[in-house]
């Protein structure tokens, strides 16, 4: 992934999702517990069947994250993870799945000699990243970054929340590139034991838009993946459940690969059930 960023295909991410629908999108925090480990873990997730991989660039104030990813970010920062180290990791990675960077806006702004989003985007493209997700950058503030991403052929992925409705939903969906990151429920990231009603409602609301939709926030098991895909998603996004493996497993690489396989199987199962019996959609669970 060291080729010139200008050569990156315009629809890397969208293609990855559409071609692999239902797609599995996996997330881990770069530098947790070290960048060397992250490299091995990303390769494992790639082998396990990830269709897209999000790499978290750690920021000291991760307001959108729950306890699990907060802890991962703290470990990564304690290990001395820097943006430059991050990009060097990406330079080195050769994965099937396209890579996205997920980070907070200030990290993007500060890269380079003065507050400006372009140096970051340029370097991201150069490193071979296909897109950027910024959890604290709503569409209203996104113009500078979107322009820079457009200039360098990167997708800027927007989040659609359960509270996103009406005019704002229109605006966001008109700007979506890559895919719409559908936030499964209110709150922060973190593995949960069920799939929320909000997920079903959000997918319902988005059904009229012809862009890939991937659901994240709280997805931790193959069965969730299945249910989400059945509910109409083109992909599932899993993060905290993988961080738990990074932090707790004796052999994280192997377990990450196995987990990715389980999740991908779940997603595929959901898609199959959808094709076989569209009338037998499971009831959304009550909150």
């Amino acid at each position: 992934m060291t080729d010139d960023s200008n050569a990156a295909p315009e629809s890397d991410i969208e293609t990855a999702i559409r071609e692999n629908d239902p797609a599995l999108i996996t997330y881990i925090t770069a530098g947790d517990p070290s960048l060397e480990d992250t490299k091995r873990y990303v390769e494992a997730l790639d082998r396990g069947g990830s269709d897209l991989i999000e790499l978290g660039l750690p920021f000291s104030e991760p307001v959108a994250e729950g306890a699990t990813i907060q802890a991962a970010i703290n470990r990564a920062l304690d290990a001395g993870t820097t943006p430059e180290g991050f990009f060097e990791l990406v330079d080195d990675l050769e994965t099937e799945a396209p890579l996205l960077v997920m980070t907070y806006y200030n990290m993007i702004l500060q890269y380079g000699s003065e507050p400006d989003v372009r140096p970051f985007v340029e370097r991201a493209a150069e490193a071979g990243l296909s897109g950027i997700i910024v959890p604290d950058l709503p569409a209203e503030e996104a113009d500078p970054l979107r322009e820079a991403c457009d200039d360098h052929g990167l997708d800027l992925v927007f989040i659609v929340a359960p509270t996103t409705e009406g005019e704002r939903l229109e605006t966001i969906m008109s700007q979506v590139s890559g895919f719409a990151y559908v936030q499964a429920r209110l709150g922060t990231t973190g593995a949960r034991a069920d799939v929320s009603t909000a997920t079903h409602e959000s997918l319902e609301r988005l059904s009229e838009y012809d862009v890939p939709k991937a659901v994240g926030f709280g997805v931790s098991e193959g069965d969730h993946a299945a249910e989400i895909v059945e509910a109409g998603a083109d992909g599932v996004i899993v993060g905290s459940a993988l961080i738990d493996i990074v932090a707790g497993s004796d052999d994280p690489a192997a377990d990450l690969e196995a987990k990715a396989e389980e999740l991908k199987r779940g997603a595929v199962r959901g898609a199959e059930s959808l094709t076989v019996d569209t009338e037998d959609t499971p009831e959304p669970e009550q909150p």
Partner: protein
Amino acid sequence: ATFGDYGGQYVPEALMPALQELEDAYERYVLENEDGFMDEFRERMRDFGGRPTPLQRADRLSERYDREIYLKREDLVHGGAHKLNNALGQVLLSKYMGKERVIAETGAGQHGTATAMAAAHLDMPCEIYMGRTDVNRQRPNVYRMRMNGAEVNPVEAGSGTLKEAINETFRDWATTVETTHYVIGSVVGPHPFPKLVRDFQAVIGREAREQIREKAGRLPDSVVACAGGGSNTMGTFHEFVPDDDVALYAVEAGGSSLGVDEEEGVAPNSATLSTGTDGVLHGAMTKLLQSEEGQIVESHSVSAGLDYAGVGPELANLVETDRVTPVNVDDDAALNGFHRLSNLEGIIPALESSHALGYLEESHDELGDLVVVNVSGRGDKDLETVLEETEKRDLEAAPDVEVFDG
């Protein structure tokens, strides 16, 4: 952005509708006084909060500095600081908006206690997030909040101080945004918070401006206020901003020294306006104490209330446009300021406000003949810190306090 290059709404998408709802409520209730909101707010600030606060001529400081020094006495507001102006305004607004619950972050506990008082007064369920370290070292404030009926949620993450408490409150809000209002404690955060908080705090300057005209017959040559997040600063300055001849000084915490220790990720000060760089924190583009890579560093000040790595975006813009002069004094100067006002005027000021008084001592020659200093709060809460910190130092203004046994 909202204020020149500063401000904006850098928050998770899930919160955007709530910010828009708040913006709408701000315009209707605060700007247009719909349903008499501002009338009720002002009436409650009078009867419950104790407004107006006096503008007092400081006789002995005036003599000491050979010019007219007036003190705006926000230490007399219910709860002991200007904080209630904002907390009561926001809790009342949340009622008008039909919210069922308020949440707030607190560092040393001043904003938490103000919010808890306002919530008790208005019968609104209230939860306060406070870092575990702060919970354990600010017990009296925790008790005050509990006694006012607020839940206090200790935040275990990180260093367990203000930054973590803010992050955690944002997380709660991201989950409960449909029924909950987040009472942000200063002129920081995403739009419309900096304007909303400023407008609730602007009563300080509005009163002071009228009072100084009445007492001194003219506007002051300069107005001095301490600056952490900047709510007392903006509250004091706002009405004076159009008065071009009135110099405005924002006094930050110089801590033990200026600059950032990149290695440790620590700034031994909170002089954001004086030394910070532009960036995004807690929802707004503003000036920050950060590493070159964009990580927020831990700020430090002897005054917990100034100890914040960010600052209000409007204040950042007023500094950028040269309307406000950012200055700073170190911990020693603030402690001396604390002792000096206590000893000379019989007012024990908050350590935050003591920075303004420290600056007055150091630079009174530059402030003209008629000076207004905002005493943003009282210092009872700081007694223990002051005793500890005074003992470590050789301060010219400190009394000997040893009258105890063994």
